[in-house]
């Protein structure tokens, strides 16, 4: 009888749950629509290639979700991803070191860059938008300088392309060769969802976005946690660097700009609030899938690429507007 008389005020808005539902429903509608429109869409091969195409953007989006939940933003993830790939190339191709050290280089470089952004935000009190805008340009420049503007190829490292293209599952289940890149995406997403849901770090991520001053007054070293969150997101960015360079079998120093916006778009479509305090990894995954289903589907229907861009833009606006409507309705 413990619950009798206990006042349990249900949250008036189980907000992000609804948004997730909405996003998920849109995903289903998109998939169904494209499947009807073209028989080539709903084929194993095509589905796998959609998943594969989601992996890089998905990993980036998962990382930046954490930062956005704190009420921050990271505009440098695109060029940071490239820079981590370049550093991996330096270690593996130029240095001739074994693969595990290359992986370490990617994640380590990302974490270090993230730590720098985090320090700028937390200690130097530079607004995240500005700090990471600066980092975006710095890292873009550094990638070009280090490589002398030429790509670094991974031909010397056996199996580098397998990181993303190979399929551990395919070896066991030949009918369904899910690429490793997709597994890595799900692993990273699972890990971050766990961190957000279960750990102290996750708790502070939400708390910072909800009321930073209150967290500080509670005696929490908010600066340190914020730096940790940016560093972790940076490390995840390094994983995206591995994925993309493995897919291209090279580190392309000119690549990167624009990826950050796609990732942020996925986060927003997934219902994470840009003002912080609320958000989910599942939502972000769905958001990333919606983006790549859209791109793929429009391509399958032979829509011109310039129109694909327009449609993507419209979808982002509609998604956020739907979120606003829902919020207004329940308030």
């Amino acid at each position, binding site marked *: 009888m413990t619950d009798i*008389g*206990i*006042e*349990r*005020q*249900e*949250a*008036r808005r189980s907000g992000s749950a609804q948004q997730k539902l909405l996003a998920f429903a849109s995903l289903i509608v998109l998939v169904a629509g494209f499947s009807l429109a073209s028989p080539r869409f709903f084929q194993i091969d095509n589905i796998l290639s959609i998943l594969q195409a989601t992996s890089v953007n998905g990993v980036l989006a998962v990382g930046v979700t954490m930062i956005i939940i704190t009420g921050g933003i990271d505009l440098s993830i695109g060029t940071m991803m490239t820079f981590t790939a370049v550093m991996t190339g330096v270690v593996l191709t130029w240095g001739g070191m074994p693969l595990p050290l290359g992986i370490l280089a990617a994640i380590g470089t990302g974490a270090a860059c993230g730590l720098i952004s985090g320090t700028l935000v937390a200690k130097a009190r530079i607004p995240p938008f500005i700090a990471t805008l600066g980092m975006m340009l710095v890292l873009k420049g550094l990638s070009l300088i280090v490589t002398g503007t030429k790509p670094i190829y991974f031909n010397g490292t056996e199996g580098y392309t397998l990181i993303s293209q190979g399929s551990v599952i395919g070896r066991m289940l030949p009918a369904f060769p899910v690429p490793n890149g997709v597994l890595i995406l799900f692993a990273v997403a699972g890990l971050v969802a766990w961190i957000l849901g*279960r*750990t*102290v*770090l996750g*708790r*502070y991520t*939400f*708390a910072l*976005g*909800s*009321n930073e*001053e*209150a*967290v*500080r*007054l*509670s*005696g*929490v*070293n908010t600066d340190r946690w914020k730096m940790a969150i940016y560093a972790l997101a940076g490390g995840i960015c390094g994983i995206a660097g591995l994925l993309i360079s493995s897919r291209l079998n090279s580190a392309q120093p000119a690549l990167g700009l624009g990826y950050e916006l796609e990732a942020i778009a996925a986060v927003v479509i997934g219902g994470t609030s840009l003002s912080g*305090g*609320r958000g989910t990894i599942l939502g972000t995954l769905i958001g990333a899938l919606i983006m790549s289903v859209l791109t793929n589907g429009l391509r399958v229907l032979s829509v011109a690429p310039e129109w694909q861009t327009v449609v993507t833009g419209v979808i982002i606006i509609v998604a956020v507007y739907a979120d606003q409507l829902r919020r207004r309705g329940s*308030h």
Partner: protein
Amino acid sequence: MTAGRELVRMQGIDKHFPGVHALKSVGFELRAGEVHALMGENGAGKSTLMKILSGVYRPDGGRILIDGAEVQIADPRASQALGIGIIHQELALMRDLTAAQNIWIGREPRLSLGRIDEARQNADTAAIFARMNLRLDPRTPVASLSIARQQMIEIAKALSYRPRVLIMDEPTAALNDAEIAELFSIIRQLRDEGVGIIYISHKMDEIKRISDRITVMRDGAHVATVDAATTAIGSIIAMMVGREIGDEQVVVPDLAQAPVALEVRGLTRGTELRDISFSLKKGEILGFAGLMGAGRTELARAIFGAEPADGGEILIHGRPARIRSPHDAVRAGIGYLSEDRKHYGLALGMDVRANIAMASLARFTDRLGRLDEPGLRKVARDHIARLRIRTPGDRQEVRFLSGGNQQKVVIAKWLLRDCDILIFDEPTRGIDVGAKAEIYHLLTDLAAAGKAIIVISSEMPEVLRLSHRIAVMCEGRLTGILPAASSQQAIMELATERQGGTA
């Protein structure tokens, strides 16, 4: 009460803010096992002194001794380590987290791998709630709680530290009588365990009930520390404001000929508002009494269009009005002063001038959309003087004002807007006795000038002091309307008149 040993001694504490000398060599001393009230007008420096003790601010000068040894309190964590707990005046909760998560923030019980032991956290929270007689699920998200409930969470959080020194900065501002009684029994229990308690409040009766000693501050300086039992309230107030304030009675004007300004017919929304009808005349002050959660704020928000009703009718000056949003309401001449100023009332990062003008900008805009800044400056300064808002100037950001002065800024905003119908929801929360008397005068004058006014208040003396008629609500229903000179007894009966014995 045996005088305990000295726990805290603050000596010669000095603190400057840009344009404000907030603390002028203030001394303060706290003993174990006493409740020490800290009193003073809005902006006297009470919160600032306590923020120094709890590590939020560093003093410019002076010494702090704990148990006789000098200490440096660099940040909130250092003060926690010294056993000092504080309930801040402004609620400092994370709205997106649950009650339990808020309470244990920074000290989460952990499992391996940095995981949080939610089960234990919820169980510990339930134990604290049980001790406070608070019936609340630890997993409730804070955003869905009323301010009173949020305040109880703050109190639970402070208790969870098991502090030796507990600072409460206006803890009862949002609590009803039952909750206050509960809080006082907790305070007494803590005091008997030897905890030193610093208690800040503007409610005189509370101070008399709970405190052992009283320290009065004025203009950032220490005035006196006196024994609570042997000092009359009148002389405490005199020390605070430097003058005597008389007790006044409400004078009910003859409104027989006055036209009806606002009429509400059968207003209904879900279970929060059930078939509410009343009318309000021009020149009348209608008080709304009731327990916390009786639906008074919901009623105000429905009339104001913030959360429109599902059914019923609102007539303004005899004509049906369609109010679907606050914008409609303001255009129809209704002003609403929210009880939760931080969320709805103020743009904290903007200055006093901008906040006062916020609801009236159209009047200060020319055809090209340019703002008449000199005009704005003038009205802002007028209101600062009229309400005695303590601020270095009209360009000061509102977040730097003391709590009570922020409340005055909200009042100024609605006064400037010049509405026909004004709804004040807890207008004097956190306001000192002197300013309270001024606000009462102001409301009375506004009514005399022909405004129709609704005052929602949880303080019975306030309702009785102001109202020409008293409406009482219980569980979303209007249970009765009483004449001005009714007894507290009669009001309480209506306030607890539940429907058909569903308890």
